[in-house]
């Protein structure tokens, strides 16, 4: 008989409130009265998973349906896992405390490659058969979504189905299909429901496809095994965010979570076109919410949560077309309620400093900017359209406004990078230090330089390029260590090994499933946490499995080489990505299509959607003398 976690075990673990649920706003339904039960699983700890906006949205939309009950589950921290395994207590969902194996639909979000072993671990702890092909009729249909789903191939063995793109409509549709199949007595078995699911636009059933590899080991082709299996599978996208329901009464946890505040998604997508950016491709096009709607949502959020901070959330909030008036209005409206407004990131310009002066949450800490690269040439290569003058203006304005702490984000290992570009990072840091002395007449700036190692991602212009070797990254880090020996500058960087592993799985294929399973069997989990990441164990497992990491991460890929992820269509064409890759080599910029000309990426015509920008719409309407809506 399965054991059950008791107070005795909870007393022994760190932060037991991670496992007990019962938060304000959780949804409880009668398990026997609903048609389909869904568990939304996040393969990391509660504090991380509870901060994820995507699940707040899906939890709300699924539970809005009377006959669907969606619950939550998170990866237990290793101390809790030990207690669970000792007792034989399965991983359960927080609301009903039902084991994961008893759900109809079990969803995982694929947020980062280093959480993949946690997915396997959670399946195991939940009593779910690991390999999709071996699962029994009573077991849940395991579905994956999220950003990494645009190359889910390393996980294909473990999932029944993947949801490509935005899940607002699609996950509810999928739950309905599973519910109807269950109500009808599960006709055709698991194969039967997968056939039905594969009919929905945006759902991908990996078992319905055969992958072939060439003699040299390269991916060659993916072909449907079923007549009905489509190719490619095009992502689902919500055409107008103003028309979808937003979670205005999210769960308010007891324990502090990573983003412990109201999250107001102001827009989705980003068309700045940074060539390294995966999110910028898969979330196209830009779709803004109307300022009036945002203010209405903010009011409902404030009333229902009791939070005292509201975060304007998006990939690049400073780019919201109506940001300045929106911030002013929100600050005015909530001053008496002691609700502050915060921005998750700032653009590198003085406009952003003007905004930062207004919002409270940024004041508490220092300012964070992302120049991404140290020289103009390198920034042109990655299409990050900021200049040294932008930096000068921004930090000058910041210092004049009273800030002294500045954090700068950079990447190393970018294409065409030379040592000059690495030195450029150090030069920029000192430029900020000098600027402070120039503006304030004394020293006292605290500059933090945070350097990550670039990982080439699928569906981006850099999907063809080799990732820097770990030795090369270590050499470049050593240059920075050497150059940034100053009491005004702090250098932060990560070990190159985690980026390497991320790089392997980001552009991996189905053959990596066996490696993942073997790594999990060898004890890998929480790979995103330095205290649990063990590169030597991974290296050993890759060697034992006879799989070469360099083959996936370190190899320059040819212009015509087929990729293991191209059956999943973001709407952005391969031709456009290659064109961008070539422009990158020449250091040519591509303008943001939001304000300038269409860059021809292909998303809008392919998906039948368009950029929604409210200030541009306002201007266009005025030009046509049309009354402005809403």
């Amino acid at each position, binding site marked *: 008989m399965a054991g059950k976690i008791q107070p005795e075990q909870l007393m022994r673990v760190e932060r037991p409130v991670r496992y007990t649920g019962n938060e304000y706003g959780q949804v409880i339904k009668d398990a026997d009265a609903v048609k389909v039960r869904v568990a939304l699983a996040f393969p990391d700890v509660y504090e991380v998973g509870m901060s994820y906006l995507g699940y707040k949205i899906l939890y709300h939309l699924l539970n809005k349906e009377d006959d669907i009950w969606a619950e939550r589950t998170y990866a237990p921290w290793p101390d809790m896992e030990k207690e669970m395994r000792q007792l034989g207590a399965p991983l359960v969902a927080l609301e009903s405390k039902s084991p994961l194996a008893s759900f109809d639909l079990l969803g995982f979000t694929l947020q980062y490659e280093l959480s993949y072993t946690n997915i396997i671990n959670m399946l195991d702890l939940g009593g779910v058969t690991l390999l999709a092909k071996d699962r029994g009729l009573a077991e849940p249909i395991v579905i994956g979504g999220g950003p990494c789903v645009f190359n889910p191939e390393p996980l294909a063995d473990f999932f029944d189905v993947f949801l490509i793109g935005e899940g607002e409509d699609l996950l509810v549709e999928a739950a309905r299909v599973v519910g109807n199949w269950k109500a009808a007595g599960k006709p055709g078995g698991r194969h039967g429901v997968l056939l039905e699911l594969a009919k929905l636009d945006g759902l991908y059933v990996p078992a319905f496809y055969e992958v072939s590899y060439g003699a040299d080991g390269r991916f060659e082709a993916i072909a449907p095994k079923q007549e009905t299996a489509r190719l490619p599978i095009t992502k689902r996208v919500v055409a107008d965010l103003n028309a979808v329901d937003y979670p205005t009464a999210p769960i308010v946890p007891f*324990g502090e979570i990573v983003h412990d505040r109201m999250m107001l998604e102001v827009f989705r997508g980003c068309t700045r076109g940074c060539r390294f950016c995966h999110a910028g491709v898969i979330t196209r096009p830009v779709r803004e919410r109307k300022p009036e709607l945002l203010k209405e949502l903010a009011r409902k959020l404030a009333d229902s949560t009791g939070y005292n901070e509201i975060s304007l959330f998006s990939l690049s909030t400073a780019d919201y077309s109506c940001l300045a008036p929106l911030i002013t209005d929100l600050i005015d409206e909530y001053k008496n309620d002691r609700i502050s407004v915060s921005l998750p990131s700032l653009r590198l310009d003085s406009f952003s400093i003007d905004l930062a002066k207004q919002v409270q949450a940024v004041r508490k800490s220092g300012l964070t900017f992302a120049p991404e690269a140290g020289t103009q040439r390198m920034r042109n290569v990655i299409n990050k359209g900021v200049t040294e003058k932008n930096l000068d203006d921004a930090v000058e304005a910041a210092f004049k406004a009273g800030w002294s702490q500045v954090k700068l984000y950079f990447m190393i290992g970018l294409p065409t990078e030379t040592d000059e570009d690495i030195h450029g990072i150090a030069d920029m840091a000192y430029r900020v230090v000098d600027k402070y002395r120039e503006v304030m007449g004394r020293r006292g700036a605290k500059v933090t330089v945070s350097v990550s190692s670039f990982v080439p991602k699928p569906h981006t212009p850099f999907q063809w390029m080799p990732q820097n070797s770990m030795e090369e990254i270590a050499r470049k880090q050593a240059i920075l260590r050497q150059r940034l020996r100053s009491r005004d500058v702090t250098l932060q960087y990560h070990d190159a090994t985690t980026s390497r592993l991320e790089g392997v799985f980001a552009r991996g294929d189905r053959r990596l499933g066996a490696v993942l399973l073997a790594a999990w069997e060898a004890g890998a989990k929480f790979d995103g946490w330095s205290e649990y990441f063990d590169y030597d164990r991974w290296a050993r497992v890759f060697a034992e499995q006879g799989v070469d990491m360099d083959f996936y991460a370190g190899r320059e890929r040819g212009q015509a080489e087929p990729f293991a992820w191209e059956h999943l269509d973001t709407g952005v064409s391969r031709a456009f990505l290659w064109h961008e890759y070539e422009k990158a080599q020449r250091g040519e910029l591509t303008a943001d299509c939001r304000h300038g000309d269409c860059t021809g990426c292909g998303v809008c015509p392919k998906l039948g959607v368009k950029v929604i920008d409210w200030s541009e719409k306002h201007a266009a309407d005025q030009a046509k003398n049309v009354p402005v809506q809403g």
Partner: protein
Amino acid sequence: MQPIRLRMCLSKDESIRFVSHLEYAKALERALRRAKLPAAYSEGFNPHMKLSLASALAVGTTSRNEYAEVELTEKRPLAELAGALSKALPPGMRLIKALLVEGPAPKLMAVVAGASYLISLPFDGDPVVLKQQIEAFMAMPSFPYEKRSPKGKPAKQLDLRALIRQMSATVDEAGMASIALSIAMPPAGTIKPLEALQALQEHFQWSLPLERALVERVALYENQQGGWRPLLGG
């Protein structure tokens, strides 16, 4: 204007047993905000709600009676305040009692004199012996106890017997013991209920499975004419 305070007695139920003291206070603050009570805030850049709890409660401990008070900026009918707050509380926190205090009065945390607890745990010994030993302890003139302090600070010398005002035990047919314990909370230092049981366990060589003990705070008291009276008049 005289300061107005809303004093509250709330539960911490089984479903939120593992919520910490700070988390409990934060949950109450958010509930007060949802209820749109006219709470007062500190001045300055990071305004804080003028909310305080009478006594900290450990992770894993439930309570029938927790006490808190919040300063208000205006007077409103008590029934209206209590009704709004009740609706806004998370599950596991129930408003048991509320009252308004006008004018100067000491903070609740300053008047707390002691607390009583009920500890339940499995027991397979002889209940008669247990009761006799508890009586023997209560008859002692003193029971020196060294309380280890966070690193760096010297240990505190406490008299466990003087701190424990009352102690009794019952054992039911299912083998579950209920130990009632009243502990004084003088400024010089006090002891947690399970620490007290651990000390007695060592002295009497009991074999109580303390790791399985469930602790419930029954009441908080203030001094009144030489005796204890529950906070907010019980």
